[in-house]
């Protein structure tokens, strides 16, 4: 009996101690949840922003966290947070424009569940081709598409932004039925697949194909943007917009929970704007991450979401079958 009492008391004391340690401590630190890979572009930029937050605010600290899970992570975030909670989350066109159309049951949230804070970055995706194909420009690509029966493209995830960019480009060239999208589990893996000869093309962030391109394994054919790339190692690579093909940039919106006080949201936006205007951050984003600072208004965000939705509706048959 004594031993049982000892066991029970020990368990109670330890349980109470754990609960006692659960208080928040009262600091205004905002946890920023990235629902994608911890080694991915968004998580890395979020980490950098968190580091810089102490430089620009004495009251607000950003704490970066990455929980890979896409819609599932955001579902959990929405379920576990309330207005004015010191929690932020990233969403992008992948969730707001793609999943919302292809698999709405997976999303237990809508755009209305968030309060837009700022766009963390803009990324111009590029299409790279196996060097052996000798496809270096959009004109080469059009000629290749005409003469081939299958266009295999490595993409990150089965229904991500990369898949829709590939579908939109080849679909608008009239070769939607020739496209074979091969999904990989990470953007880096997809970028390497083309160099290993597993696919003919890959769509990726610029930074993820840089090393392979420098080694000569692939040619970067075009950028998914209106005009040619203006900075960095891929400067001068043609934009598909110049040829009238559809495109969109990959963006990462920082969101607070809907109903959060306007002053708080405004203070966070100011903080992000200061961080994103910092010369060190601008240079780092441009030269190291091959991304662009692209602060946006709420209206710009809504326009971006609508543009991608239109593309998804038009080319979803190529991606989802």
């Amino acid at each position: 009996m004594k031993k049982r009492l000892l066991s029970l008391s020990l368990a109670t004391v330890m349980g109470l101690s754990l609960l006692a340690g659960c208080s928040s401590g009262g600091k205004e630190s905002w946890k920023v949840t990235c629902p994608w890979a911890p080694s991915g572009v968004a998580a890395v930029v979020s980490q950098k922003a968190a580091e810089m937050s102490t430089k620009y605010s004495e009251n607000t600290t950003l704490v970066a966290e990455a929980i890979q899970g896409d819609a599932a992570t955001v579902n959990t975030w929405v379920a576990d947070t309330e207005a004015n909670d010191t929690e932020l989350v990233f969403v992008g066109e992948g969730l707001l424009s793609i999943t919302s159309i292809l698999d709405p049951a997976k999303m237990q949230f809508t755009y209305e569940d968030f309060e837009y804070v700022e766009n963390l970055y803009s990324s111009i995706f590029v299409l790279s081709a196996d060097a052996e194909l000798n496809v270096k420009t959009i004109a080469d690509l059009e000629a290749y598409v005409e003469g081939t029966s299958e266009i295999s493209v490595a993409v990150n995830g089965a229904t991500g932004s990369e898949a829709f960019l590939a579908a939109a480009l080849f679909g608008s060239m009239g070769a939607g039925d020739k496209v074979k999208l091969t999904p990989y589990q990470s953007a880096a893996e997809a970028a390497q697949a083309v160099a290993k000869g597993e696919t003919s093309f890959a769509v990726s962030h610029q930074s993820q194909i840089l090393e392979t391109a420098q080694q000569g394994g692939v040619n970067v054919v075009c950028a998914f943007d209106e005009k040619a790339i203006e900075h960095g190692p891929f400067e001068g690579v043609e934009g598909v917009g110049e040829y009238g093909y559809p495109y969109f940039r990959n963006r990462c919106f920082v969101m607070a929970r809907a109903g959060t006080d306007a002053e708080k949201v405004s203070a966070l936006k100011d903080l992000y704007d200061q961080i994103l205007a910092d010369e060190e951050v601008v240079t780092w984003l441009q030269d190291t991450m091959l991304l662009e600072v692209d602060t946006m208004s709420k209206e710009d965000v809504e326009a971006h979401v609508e543009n991608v939705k239109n593309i998804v509706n038009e080319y979803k048959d190529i991606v989802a079958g």
Partner: protein
Amino acid sequence: MLEYIVPATGLLFTLENILWINIGVFVGSVFAAIPGLSVILCVILFLPVTYTMTAIPGMMFLLGIYCAGGYGGSVSAILINTPGTPHAAATMLDGHPLSQQGRTKAALKIALYASTFGGVFSALMLLFLGPQVAKIAAQLGTPEYFMVCVFGLTIIAGVSGKSMIRGIISACLGLLIACIGSDPMTSYDRFTFGVSRLYLGLDLAVCLIGLFALVEILAKAEKRLDALHLDTRKIKDDGKITKSEYKRMIRPVLLSSLIGVMVGIIPGTGASEASWFSYSQAKNMSKHPEEFGHGSVEGIAAAESANNAVTGATLIPLLTLGIPGDGTVALMLSALMINGLNPGLSLFTTDGDIMYAIMLGLILVNIFMCIQGKFLTTLFAKVVSIPQEILTPVIVIFCFAGAYSVNNNYFDVGVALIFGALAWILRKLDMPPVPILLGLVLGKMTEPHFRRALLISNGDPAIFFSSIYCLIFLALIIVAVATIIRGKLNDQKKERAAAAAAANVHEEE
């Protein structure tokens, strides 16, 4: 390599890392010293703690537990003739007799020094071999990786206990559980039943808390364990090891360390195999084979250096190919991946400074294990007799706190409880849990590589035999399966012979 070692040294030698190494070594030694608590249980309980850490301190903590677990098991083996961990069983054969001769401290010292040498040797092997294997891994494509995964799945045959069929069933269960969540090739949901928290799949740490930790509590509740009584006066000897004894230890320690590394590299084998094989080799090569089983210093040194030499070697296939050598290192994979570090060449190039810091840290772990062992052995010895009434509630609290802390929600606590109940039923059916763990880990890698390879080849299975690497791995799979089946058949034959002999004796009586 040198370009990474300098920044890695800077990253490694921080107060935080040194602290976590020491906490890990201490916790690992304590857990391994207590019979009934295992290193894998310890790693599972503390894995959620590492989720809040960056890669280096997290891995230092886990490696501290892992390596010290190798040595800690010998403490109870020597003191009370009960191995704290299965791989300390060979140490017990000579460690306890030496202790009974009044040389307990000497036996513990021999085990400590041999463990340290084996561990450092193994860490050096990892440092030099790891990057080379990773270069080969970088050349592997989707079909080759599928073959690597299948090779990894042959581990299941090695860890399936007495019945391979039961092991395979357990592994299939693990593979099935790994399917819960989004389909990797289409993003559509599978087995989620509309439960939103299942879209992400089940967290490995949460499942394992149920499978390995909670089930232990349930098992303990079923049987009454007698308290272990330890006479600490037994460890009051001077612990002196003579020069001739040191000389006699050199050869078995060197050979056993090499055996430990070779065994550790092969997935599915482990510290137990290494220590028994080394023990038998040391006996065959010894000038005093008659001393084995009666307190031979060579026997203790051989078994202990071998089981610690496995530690670094099991990390080679893990870090280069993502194939865990045993259940414990499979858990370390999730500690790495949570920090965005994926196995392969990039781990040794893009993240080279972090990786080299971890590999150098493994040497440091062994050094601190030696220091703690030297000064805290008496304390480790005393924990051997901690009553279950204290241990059990502590573990229960760690289980629930650990499950909750993974995603800060009670859903995971429920999942851990369900897995605990499942593991208890499986235990009743004599189904081993380790194949479930390997199925869970490898399932997430095997399926996408298999389906993607077929997508690339437009459904032609010849893609799995299309390159030299595929053929090499196919040959390895065949050899591994044949060896394991042969071993199992031999075991069955021996069991039948023993049963027949026992029946004859019974009839004669």
